[in-house]
C-alpha cells in the first residue's frame, strides 16, 4: 500500500479543541441534529462494516492457541520476524536520515537544485508495482542492468543479488528507500521552510554559525516533526507488502519474507488463513503501542513549528 504513505499527518490534529465561541451560533437545535447525524452516517457505516468488523473477525480467526504453537515450530516465522526488524529498523532510519540531509540540500537556492527536485520526485510519482518490477529485473544477476554497468565500467562480474538472503533483504530495503525517500524529503523540506528566518538572523547576530545554528535552531524546531515522521513511517514500513513481494519475491527459499508478506503467503499459497491471521497478530504487541502513541501525537501535538 504504497500511496497510503503519501498520506501525512504531521502536526496539529483531528480533535484540536476549538474555543467555545466557535460553536455554531446558539448550538445545534432540533432538525439540525438530524442533519448532523445524517452527515456522520456514511463514515460510521464504512468504519463499522470495513474496519471494526474485519478487526473483530481477525481477532476471532486468530484466537486459537494452537496456531501460535504452529508458528513457534515454523523456522520461516522466525526468519520473517528477524527480517521485519531489520527491514523496519534499517529502512526507516536510513530513509529518514537521508531525507533529513537531503531536505537541507534542497534548501540551496539554485536553479539546478530546483530542476533536480523535479527529477528526484519521479520515484514517488511512479506506481510501486512497475517500479519494483523494474528494480527486480535491474538486479538480475545474468541480464540485469546493474551488473551490465559494473561490467562495462569496471570489468566486474557482479553477484546474483537476489540469490542471497542478505543481499535480497538489502535490495528490498533499498527499493523501499528509493520509492519513499522523495516523499519524506518533501515533508521535512516543508518543515525546514516553515522555520522563521528571523530565528536564523537572531542566531547569526548572536554569532552562531553553521553547526551551532543547526544545534540550537534547526534541531529543536525539527525534532518533533522528525519523531512523528519516524513513528508514522515505522507503521507504514511494518505493513509494507509490495517491496518484498516484487523485488525479492520473498526468496530465495522464503528467506527474505517479512511479516506482511508471510501472512499473505500462509493464507493464499499454503491455504492456512487462520495461521496467516495469527502471524499478523503477533505484530500487535508492537503495533498497538505504536498506534496509541501516534494517535496521541497526531491529536495533541500542535504546530510547534
Amino acid at each position, binding site marked *: 500500500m504504497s500511496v497510503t504513505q503519501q498520506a*501525512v499527518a*504531521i502536526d496539529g490534529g483531528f480533535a484540536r479543541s476549538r474555543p467555545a465561541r466557535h460553536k455554531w451560533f446558539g448550538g445545534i437545535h432540533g432538525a439540525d441534529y438530524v442533519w448532523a447525524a445524517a*452527515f456522520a452516517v456514511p463514515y460510521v457505516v464504512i468504519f463499522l462494516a470495513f474496519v471494526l468488523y474485519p478487526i473483530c473477525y481477525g481477532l476471532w480467526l486468530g484466537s486459537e492457541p494452537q496456531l501460535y504453537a504452529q508458528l513457534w515450530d515454523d523456522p520461516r516465522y522466525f526468519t520473517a520476524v528477524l527480517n521485519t526488524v531489520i527491514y523496519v529498523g534499517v529502512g526507516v532510519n536510513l530513509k529518514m536520515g537521508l531525507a533529513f540531509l537531503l531536505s537541507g540540500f534542497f534548501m540551496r537556492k539554485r536553479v539546478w537544485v530546483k530542476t533536480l527536485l523535479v527529477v528526484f520526485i519521479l520515484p514517488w510519482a511512479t506506481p510501486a508495482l512497475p517500479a519494483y518490477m523494474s528494480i527486480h529485473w535491474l538486479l538480475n544477476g545474468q541480464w540485469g542492468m546493474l551488473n551490465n554497468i559494473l561490467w562495462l565500467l569496471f570489468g566486474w562480474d557482479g553477484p546474483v543479488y537476489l540469490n542471497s538472503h542478505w543481499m535480497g533483504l538489502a535490495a528490498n530495503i533499498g527499493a523501499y528507500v528509493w520509492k519513499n525517500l522523495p516523499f519524506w524529503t518533501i515533508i521535512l523540506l*516543508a518543515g525546514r521552510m516553515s522555520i522563521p528566518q528571523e530565528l536564523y538572523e537572531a542566531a547569526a547576530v548572536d554569532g552562531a554559525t553553521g553547526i551551532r545554528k543547526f544545534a540550537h535552531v534547526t534541531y529543536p524546531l525539527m525534532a518533533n516533526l522528525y519523531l512523528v515522521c519516524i513513528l508514522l513511517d515505522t507503521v507504514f514500513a511494518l505493513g509494507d507488502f509490495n517491496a518484498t513481494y516484487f523485488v525479492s519475491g520473498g526468496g530465495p527459499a522464503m528467506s527474505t519474507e517479512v511479516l506482511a508478506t508471510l*501472512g499473505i503467503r500462509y*493464507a493464499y499459497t499454503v491455504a492456512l488463513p487462520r495461521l496467516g491471521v495469527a502471524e499478523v497478530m503477533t505484530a500487535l504487541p508492537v*503495533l498497538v503501542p505504536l498506534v496509541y502513541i501516534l494517535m496521541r501525537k497526531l491529536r495533541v501535538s500542535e504546530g510547534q513549528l
Partner: protein
Amino acid sequence: MSATYGRTASTGPTFGGGGTSAGAAQAGIRRSSRLHTPLHYRIQRYGMETLAIAFGLVLAIWSVLPIYNMWMIALETHDGVFAGSIWPEEPTLESFRVVVTQDFWYLARFWHQFGNSFYVGLSVMFLTLAIGSLASFTVGRMRIRHGWMLSNAALMTYVIPASFLAIPMYRIMQIYGLSNHLSSVVLALTTFATPYAIFIFSQYGKSIPMELDESARIDGANPFQIYFRIYLPLMAPALVAVGTYALLLAWNEYLYNFLLLSTPESMTVAVALAQFLNSDESPWNFMMATAIIYAMPPIILYYGFRRYMAAGLTMGGVKG
C-alpha cells in the same frame, strides 16, 4: 510546491546555501568585492559547489535508473532483453504495439482492465470526497457531541497497516457477497483513503471563518445548504489535493486488487501486470511496456497537480 518554495525562495537569506545564497542585489556587491575575498575562501566556495553538483548527479542517477531500465527493456526486442547491453541496440516500439492492440494472451483484455482501473480510481475518489467532507463538516463545523469518537476512529484507521487487515477483509467481502466485484475493491480502498481526507479537511476547514456559517444560518439556510454552498466551494483546494490522493491510492494499490479480483473480467491493470510474473518465460519487454502505460496516468496527474498535491501534503504539517 513551487508556491511554497517560491515564498521562501524570494525571502530566504543566507541559510544553507553554502555561502552563495544571497539575493540578486547582494550578488552584485559580492561580485565587485570578489577581488578582496581571500583566495582560500573562494576555493572553498567553488569546491563546495562542485561537490554539491557531483552529489546532485549521483542523486539524479539513483532516482532515474530503475525508470530508465523500464524504458530500455520496453524498447528492446524479445532477444535484445537478454543481450546484456545498457541501451537498446535496435530500439523498437513493437512491445507497445503488442500492448495497445492486445496481441498477447496475458493482455487479451488490456483495455477492459484499464477501464476497470479507471472505474475503481474515480469511484474511490468520489466516495472519499463525499464521505470525508460530510464527516469533517459534521465534526468540525457542526461540532456534534461525540464527534471526537469519529475523529479517533478515522485516526486509528489511518495508522493501521492495510496489509494487516487483508485476510479478514477478504473473508468479509465474501460474506457480503462482493468477491470478484469491482465494488469490493472500491469499498475497501475508500475505507483506507477516507481517514486522510477527514484529517486534511478538518485541518483546512479551520481556515474558513465560522461567521460565514452563522450568517448563512441567520439567513435561513439549513445545514445541507451550508455544506453544499459554503463549505464545499471554499474547500476546493483541499478537495483537489485529497481527490488526487485518493485517485492515486486506488490506481497504485496492488494487494487488495489481487486478493479481491481474480477473473480476467474483473481484474485491474495492476493484477494483470503482476500475472506476468507467474510464468518463468515472461516476455519482459511486453511487461515493461505495460508497466510504462500503467504508470503514465499517475505520473501525468502528479506532475499536473504538483502544486495542489504538495499543498495538501504540507497542509497538515506546516503553518505559516
